[in-house]
């Protein structure tokens, strides 16, 4: 320590004259290799099943090779066409399209291209399907332009060609634009019409509901965690089992249970009507909306708040509160000025955990959220499995990932990651 502070340039050497750092590294190399060997299976597993798919997904959000791969000559020929000119492309483009489509139809790739471009402009899918059936019968001698327009008059439509040209580059920002409800119009990037905007609003709702869920988890979980930490071991173990019980029950069962409880003909409404608190005509709507999502997800994520809180609270010695009281603080002051600040790392850990889990939650909003209570992840799932627009799903997922990371950085700036303790 002393040497390195006073003379940083002077290199220390071992007895035989070799650099101390080199010798140390050599001595530790064996241990490092051993450590690497021990974690290698997990490392490989994580790389293959976690890092690689995520990287692939991130890539998919900008990847757009399908147009150029399927219609290489057309893309080439279109390069010289000015999409803003107001005129259709010339004969060479149609000729290129013809020879490209002949190959594509043979390899049956034209329908895939059709459905890809259909995300951008409806109707293109059927256009390619229809043209695909006709293209083989086209006459090589006659001009292709007329033959294509005769096959489907969409080929005489400027917007078809504009779309084709706009999405001919290998990489596109189109998915990301779509993910923030924007599109590339004639005058550059612009927002979609208000009635077509969904994703910004969904992102906002996802964040807002996640915050609400986090806060309700904190309010419900804090006293429980306090009890767990304060009660004698035997009682607190029993309580802990009750806290962990939901973990041993299927997620679907729990969510379905909430359906039974919350629906309009459900247990809670029946009870409220029975005791006369609400009339039969005014049964509360507590499910298939945001209320349902908040209630069910708070219940499901509660243990993730309680456990970090508990593990932090357990380390807070009861003598702190006693000391505060002996110094003249009443119960509230002792709690608020002495106990609470020391439990903040637990709140931080619990809040981050619950929030990040909530923001990406899928199954519960799907089941109890109806239309007003679904999250962005449900939309991602829709694009993955129903609309098969993986590019848009990837873009939405990337934005979700980015949002979480930004929030994490903000959180680090405000609270400090050092202040997060999981145990």
């Amino acid at each position: 320590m002393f040497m390195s502070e006073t003379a940083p340039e002077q290199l220390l050497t071992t007895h035989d004259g070799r650099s101390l750092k080199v010798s140390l590294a050599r001595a530790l190399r064996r241990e490092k290799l051993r450590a690497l060997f021990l974690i290698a299976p997990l490392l490989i597993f994580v790389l293959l099943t976690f890092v690689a798919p995520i990287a692939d997904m991130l890539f998919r959000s900008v990847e757009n090779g399908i147009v150029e791969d399927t219609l290489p000559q057309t893309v080439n020929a279109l390069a010289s066409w000015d999409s803003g000119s107001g005129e259709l492309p010339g004969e060479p483009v149609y000729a290129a399209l013809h020879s490209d489509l002949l190959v594509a139809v043979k390899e049956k790739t034209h329908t895939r291209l059709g459905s890809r471009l259909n995300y951008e402009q409806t109707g293109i899918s059927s256009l390619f399907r229809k043209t695909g059936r006709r293209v083989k019968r086209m006459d090589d001698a006659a001009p292709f332009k007329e033959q294509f327009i005769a096959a489907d008059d969409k080929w005489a439509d400027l917007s078809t060609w504009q779309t084709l040209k706009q999405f001919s580059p290998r990489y596109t920002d189109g998915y990301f634009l779509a993910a923030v409800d924007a599109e590339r119009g004639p005058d550059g990037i612009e927002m979609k019409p208000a009635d077509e905007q969904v994703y910004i609003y969904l992102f906002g709702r996802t964040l807002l509901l996640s915050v609400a869920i986090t806060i309700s988890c904190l309010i419900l979980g804090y006293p429980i965690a306090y009890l767990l930490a304060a009660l004698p071991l035997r009682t607190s173990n029993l309580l802990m089992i009750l806290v962990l019980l939901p973990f041993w029950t299927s997620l679907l069962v729990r969510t379905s249970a909430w359906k039974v409880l919350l629906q309009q003909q459900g247990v809670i409404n029946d009870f409220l009507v029975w005791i006369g608190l609400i009339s039969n005509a005014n049964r509360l709507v507590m499910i298939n909306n945001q209320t349902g999502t908040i209630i069910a997800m708070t219940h499901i994520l509660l243990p993730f708040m309680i456990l970090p809180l508990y593990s932090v609270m357990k380390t807070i010695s009861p003598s702190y509160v006693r000391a505060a009281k002996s110094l003249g603080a009443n119960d509230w002051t002792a709690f608020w000025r002495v106990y609470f600040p020391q439990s903040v790392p637990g709140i931080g850990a619990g809040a981050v955990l619950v929030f990040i889990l909530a923001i990406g939650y899928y199954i519960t909003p799907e089941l109890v959220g109806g239309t007003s209570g679904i999250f962005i992840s449900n939309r991602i799932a829709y694009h993955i499995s129903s609309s098969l627009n993986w590019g848009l799903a990837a873009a939405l997922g990337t934005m979700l990932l980015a949002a979480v990371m930004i929030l994490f950085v903000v959180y680090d700036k405000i609270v400090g990651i050092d202040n997060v303790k999981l145990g």
Partner: protein
Amino acid sequence: MAGTRGASVVYDSVQKSYDGESLVVKNLNLDIPPGEFLTMLGPSGSGKTTCLMMLAGFEPATHGEIYLNDKPINNVSPHKRGIGMVFQNYALFPHMTVAENLAFPLQVRNMNKAEQQEKVQRALEMVELGQFGNRRPAQLSGGQQQRVAVARALVFDPELVLMDEPLGALDKQLREQMQYEIKHIHENLGVTVVYVTHDQTEALTMSDRVAVFNDGIIQQLSSPDVLYEDPQNSFVAQFIGENNKLNGKVIDIQGDECKVELSDGTHLKADKVNVDSIGDLTTISLRPERVEFDDAVSMDNVVSGKIEEMIYLGDHIRVRMNVAGNDEFIVKVRNRGEKRALSVGDTVKVGWARNDCKALDHVA
């Protein structure tokens, strides 16, 4: 700040049970006058900490009443008792600086800022930590944390300060130094101090009076010298200082003197302290430093014993002997620098005065 501004404390028939089946504190009666430094000394589980916690208000008394300045405080909540307390592991608030820790009791009393600062600074200087106000407790050494804890317990001028094994976490040298410091602070301020420890040296060094606890009962309550010189029963004799045990039977009693026959037939003269009648079994207690080799012949009790082991300890030599069938008989010989003709295996005569050995209750 000299003079007495301490509070008086009275425990009146206090009993405490945690489980409703056994008593941790059995009928405690204790009178602590203003300004006294009283130590509750005892092994763990003897009920001493429970007594302290009842006084602080963190444990309710199961029966009986505790009075602070002649006012019953059983139903006064801890924060209204105005008692300063130093905890075993200091309990300094880790998220506050030293100065904030000290200001805490003043803030909750709504004292104005200027006065707070002045008091905090004065308290820090009292414990010689004037420059450390802006540090966090974790940045201080154990001894410094200890001093902050003491300063915090005193900063709001309480009349009574409780200390629960405050020096337990310090190393030996620091512990001794802190003992003197706490003693001097007590002398300067004149507050009443109730101090709990299981370390008898600590108790003897600091206290005006020591209450020796065992099994939920005060075994003896007296000043340190009386405790050492005149233990009232075998537990106190064993617990305070080193002690030789000799078991025997009372064969004669004359006033406060009695004659005891040991198992090997040796007769000893002893002070009658805790035996009632002839024929009682008794344990004689004798301090190792009161046994002499040289003048043995002229003393009240003379026995011969075989030297089993000699350990050189610098200021004295510890000689383990077999006396009257007890091979744990220890004699401490002061190191006067002269060569002594003692060696292991020798059989020598040892002797001691009658009033140095006490006939106490019998322990096996």
